[in-house]
């Protein structure tokens, strides 16, 4: 946490205790000082955050699951290939498809069964973790970064800058993103070189760019609103009166106070991006077909779910767990970082 953190927060240091219903209620140092003299240890904002966060078991669980998923994303695919001896794109049409081309279900050799092309679903689901998390984390990171910069600039400078940037964000919010996504991906996917002279490559990069293009305005609006409020605070006035320039105020005073919403937005945007990729895949516009992603696998399963349940269940379960984990973590971070928030 930056050194300016919480300077604009509530007056007095805040602590939390559990009330009878198990939820946390806000109390102040004045409350805890009543009664016999008790030494109250001073806590840094980081300590306060951790104290609050570690009480949120759901958020902790979410974090642990995310760490496991990241491990899975890095090592899961190769490990699964080594264990099963099946490559992620290796079809087994003779043994894993019946005479009509329908896949066989889970077995001792194919733990998750086969997909509609006769490939090992377990291996593909493990590789899918890599693609889906990569899309989720990179797209969310980029969208939040862009949104934060634009929101900060719009909120801090106001006037013409605000008008231009905010209207730009409004335009992006008004765009029918699925239609435009279809257009962009289609336009850039017909050649090996991509489009814009090779600047935009088809595949994972393009999918991430499309998601970022339509996700940053949400972050920008939230950050702009927070900045509009923060820029009127006394500590900003103080910095300005001491001669600090705009860059110093934005980077040194405003940004640290925006960490809470930024972190929360990022954690919520990760699962949204994974779902966005899944939706694009469902339309056939996601990552290339030889690159497994959960969205891709689910999209391919849509016509067969009633005769091959495993195609939906396994990747679907991973997608649900991932989404839930990020949401729980995001909620926990919001609660722990934002002292004004009661659960």
């Amino acid at each position, binding site marked *: 946490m930056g050194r300016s953190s919480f300077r604009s927060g509530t007056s007095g240091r805040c602590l939390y205790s559990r009330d009878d219903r198990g939820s946390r209620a806000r109390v102040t140092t004045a409350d805890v000082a009543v009664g016999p003299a008790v030494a109250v240890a001073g806590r840094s904002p980081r300590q306060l955050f951790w104290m609050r966060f570690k009480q949120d078991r759901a958020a902790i669980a979410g974090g642990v699951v995310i760490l496991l998923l990241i491990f899975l994303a890095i090592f899961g695919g190769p490990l699964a290939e080594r264990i099963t001896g099946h490559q992620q*794109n*290796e*079809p087994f*049409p*003779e043994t894993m*498809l*019946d*005479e*009509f*081309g*329908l896949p066989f279900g889970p077995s001792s050799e194919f733990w998750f069964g086969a997909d*509609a*092309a*006769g*490939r090992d679903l377990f291996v593909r689901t493990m590789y899918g973790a890599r693609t889906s998390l990569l899309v989720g984390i990179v797209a969310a990171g980029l969208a939040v970064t862009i949104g934060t910069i634009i929101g900060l600039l719009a909120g801090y400078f106001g006037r013409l800058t605000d008008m231009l940037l905010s209207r730009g964000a409004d335009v992006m919010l008004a765009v029918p993103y699925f239609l435009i996504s*279809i257009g962009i991906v*289609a336009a850039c*996917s*017909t*050649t*090996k070189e991509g489009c814009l002279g090779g600047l935009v490559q*088809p595949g994972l990069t393009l999918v991430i760019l499309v998601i970022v293009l339509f996700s940053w305005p949400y972050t920008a609006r939230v950050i702009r609103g927070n900045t509009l409020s923060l820029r009127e605070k006394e500590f900003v006035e103080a910095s300005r009166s001491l001669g600090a320039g705009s860059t110093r105020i934005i980077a040194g005073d405003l940004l640290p106070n925006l960490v809470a919403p930024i972190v929360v937005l990022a954690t919520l945007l990760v699962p949204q991006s994974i779902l966005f990729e899944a939706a694009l895949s469902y*339309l*056939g*516009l996601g990552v*290339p*077909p*030889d690159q497994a992603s959960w969205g891709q696998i689910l999209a*391919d399963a849509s*016509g*067969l779910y*009633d*005769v091959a349940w495993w195609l939906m269940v396994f990747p679907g379960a991973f997608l649900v767990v991932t989404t839930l984990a990020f949401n729980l973590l995001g909620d926990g971070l919001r609660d722990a970082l934002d002292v004004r928030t009661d659960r």
Partner: protein
Amino acid sequence: MGVQPVRRRVAGAIAAVLGAAALTAALVSGASAGPSDQSARGGTYRVGWESSFGWTNSFDPTGEYLANGFVIYQNLMLRTLVQFNHVAGPAGNIPVPDLATSVPKPTNGGKRYTFTLKNGVRWGPPVNRELTSQDVKYAIERLARPKNGAQYGFYFNIIKGLQAYGDGKAKSISGIKTPTSKKIIFDLTAPAGDFPMRLTMGAAAPIPQEVAKCFEGKPGAYGRYVIASGPYMIEGSEDLDISSCGAMKPISGYDGQTKLTLVRNPNYRASTDSRKARENNPDSFEFIVNTNLDDIYDKVGAGELEDEFATASPKVFAEYSRDASKRKYLKSNSADGTYYLTMNLTQPPFDDVHVRRAMNWVMDKQALRKAWGGPIAGEIAQHILPNPMLLGKLNGFQPFKTPGDKGSVAKARAEMKQSKYANSNGVCKAKECKGVLLISDVRAVDKLTLPVIQAAAAKIGITFTVRTVNGAYPVLQTTSKNVPISNRPRWFKDYADPSTFIDPLFFGGNIIPTGNTNYALVGVKASQAKALGLTGNVNNVPSIDGLADECRAKTGNARVTCYAAIDRVLTTQVAPWVPYMWAYTVNIIGPNVTKWTFDQAAGLTGLAHVAVKG
């Protein structure tokens, strides 16, 4: 049904050749015989239509190129000079007279065809008058005028003067004469043994000028006003006010988007037709669009629909094949179409014939067919043209046959060794073999074939950069895209003549910058490269143009033999494709259907012969 004295003269130049095959067909055809008496008449035959009508020209016969449109025109609505009997097997590919009294033999060295029209054929309401040779001429003139959106006008360019008329250089088509209201003469620029078959297509069906003139220069607009000459018309046709163009409102039985209803044409006289060609059993037909594929099959199974124009998936095949009580509702017929991978002869590494042959050797055709549903979806293709199209002349010709049709790595590598790209092991290590662009479609089945293709090609060292496009055909059909390989194409005959495969798919002279169907660029010349935007190796590209020119002029058995020879050359010496399946059309029919047959010429249900419980 009256006896037609001219029926014995059915055999035209091509028909005579096909006669023997027709006898065979009568024995082997999978179509049901069923009742053909008056008890079969009545009821409504309802057809579920997947996703959308998907017309190519809004159901206007001048430009409509969708097979579903063809089958409706030919079986139910529009009569042409020559037609088919709409039955399964080779017999269904034999041209028979429809409006004409006979299928004429050509004269003047194969360049003149003279047709005499039957008496008593009248237009449906509201036109109601006798159909004349002028109506046939008008239809050809209409398709010749570019502003009317004809999509396969190239089939008629062979008519003398048609090109000049289309270009505005002549006021009429010099090669069409109508000396009487019942006689029409076509003069061609060169002999074309398949010319009568070209006249079976919807664009050649007569059109009443008094209605169609209102839609001049408005491609597709006539689709809501199509006037029937066959046994069925669009419901509400009798209410169409043709007193002036302004008074005309679309016929009520076709909303353009979701439903087409056909009812009996009161002016149709069965005595002018052949019951072998059209039985006209149901009182009406309904074609109903449904965006939910599963719902279509559920309704067919429940008897709420009689048939479907939809793509049955492997799970439907399995359901109807495994359940003995349902098996009788599953119909599978050879559709005279080939599914294939196309390789661009100008793009590395496919500019080397040994690479192309190696691809043929290594491909697991059995697995590719499974992506479509297995044996019920089609027969493993061993060469380019489906065997029935060549009357069995290439039966047993299997130049790339491997055990179980699963591909042979050893033979593929032995072929690759001769390639300029491969090392001594028969595996390509050159950069030209790595990340080769493969254009696919987003359709589920296209994606299912990809792993098979990738796994097979990897065995000879070829890897792909796959791009899936929502609607890949426009990309493939643009020559400047220089697509090296694609798994999207499939081709079905336009009519039962091998030229409908050879000319559009392999004739170098037909290569055009956009809308090109010779994806492999067989026969392209270096002089064409700039205009076509080609970037690859355009020198010494193999060509079959000379052979095709020879075949085109032939008729009868010599014609079929000639095209069989081209197939041999293409498959072995050019190898532009990996043909992997000769497709079947699979239909699921409902429990109320009492008679069903397959229309071999159209490749779909023989609507002219179906019957349903009234």
